[in-house]
């Protein structure tokens, strides 16, 4: 397959997944409002200790994004029932292109979630902060891309297993801990007007590693989980 044909397939899967997700409305109608509610409730539980809220805010933001985001990204693998997977295979879809397309679609959806949640976190947890919005945006892009890749990878691994609904999050969330650390620390630095370059580079390295592992595993996993 030529590189051009490969990237056309990536774009095809990306467009199709986004369309299906927007029509289904799970991210817009369920995950985002519940994630926002979770961010709203935490300050009520901890009280008005502004120093404490300022400390936990970045961690809470990314914890919520990961917990609710994983439900979105893991759906991408579970969404395709057997007959549709067969159709895609017989249509010549390269499993690696499918993996990248699904990951990108999940990342875009999660970026939408962070667009809502990040300003909410600033208002609720660090209203006096002067965030570096550029750093926050870069961290969000790198963070959601890593989560999209991780979610698609785990969804591929558990496809075909009877216990995939429970196994998916149990496998994905521990693997997302490095992403949680990097995004939360990086966001903390950005809110404090410090550079977040080292955290950003760490996320970029994670993304590269996940792309390599995902692309290499996509084909064999697609064959063995059929």
């Amino acid at each position, binding site marked *: *397959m030529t590189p051009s044909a490969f990237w056309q*397939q990536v774009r*095809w899967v990306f467009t*199709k997944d986004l*369309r*299906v997700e927007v*029509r*289904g409305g799970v991210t817009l109608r369920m995950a985002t409002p519940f994630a926002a509610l979770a961010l709203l409730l935490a300050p009520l539980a901890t009280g008005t200790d502004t120093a404490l809220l300022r400390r936990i805010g970045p961690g809470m933001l990314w914890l919520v994004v990961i917990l609710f985001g994983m439900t979105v990204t893991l759906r991408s693998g579970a969404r395709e*029932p*057997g*007959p*549709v997977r*067969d*159709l*895609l*295979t*017989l*249509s*010549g*879809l*390269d*499993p690696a292109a499918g993996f990248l397309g699904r990951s990108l679609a999940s990342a875009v959806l999660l970026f939408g979630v962070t667009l809502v949640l990040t300003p909410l976190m600033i208002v609720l947890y660090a209203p006096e902060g002067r965030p570096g919005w550029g750093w926050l945006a870069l961290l969000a892009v790198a963070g959601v891309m890593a989560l999209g890749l991780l979610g698609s990878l785990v969804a591929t691994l558990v496809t075909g297993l009877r216990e995939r609904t429970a196994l998916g999050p149990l496998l994905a969330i521990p693997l997302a801990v490095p992403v949680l650390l990097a995004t939360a620390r990086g966001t903390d630095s950005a809110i404090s007007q410090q550079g977040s370059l080292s955290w950003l580079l760490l996320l970029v390295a994670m993304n590269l590693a996940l792309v390599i592992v995902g692309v290499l595993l996509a*084909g064999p996993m*697609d*064959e063995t989980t*059929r």
Partner: protein
Amino acid sequence: MSDQPLVRLVDVGFSASGSVILRGVGLMVEAGEIVGISGPNGAGKTTLLRLLATLLRPTSGGGTVLGVDTGARPQDLVRVRRQIALVGHFPALWPELTLRENVNLPAGLRHGPADGDPLRAVGLAGVAGLKAAHASLGMQRRVEFARLLAWTPRLLLLDEPHAGLDEAAAPLVDHLVARVTDRDGAVVMVSHDRNRAGSLLTRRLSVTAGTVVEAPA
């Protein structure tokens, strides 16, 4: 064109989760043939179709499908898979997408936009904007047939193609089968509907407890 059969399976077996589903299957399908498969539920008919589609690999024995070894690497099977169509027992549709999108999207992946309006040809032009989730089984089946009007596979595999179809739609199956065989392709069809499928077949096979035998015409 090659004299090689489109399908040649030799002593093929398939097991999954410790259960033997198919054993000792020998099967040749030549260009122009329409092979019917019957047998009781759970006998292994659908597994046989998925083996022919190269979606499953034999766990014993081997052979070729469209000239490529059934145990070939996935990257070597891509070219062959693109010449195979499988219309399974359960429709391969995205429920959130419209009927038109369910025709056009896979076409974009395989060969580009379809010429004309395949949905009109299967009598669904008036409901092209309906979500697949809201369509009846018969309408979903017609959508799958509409996809097949946009291109012609060399090997067409049908699993109960008449299920859910009304009388008016039944000739669609005949039309699709004829398109394939007219272009030196072959059709393998699982069907319990002897009245509708029987007249199409050039040969009958029976699958019983995982073994395949020639059945009387």
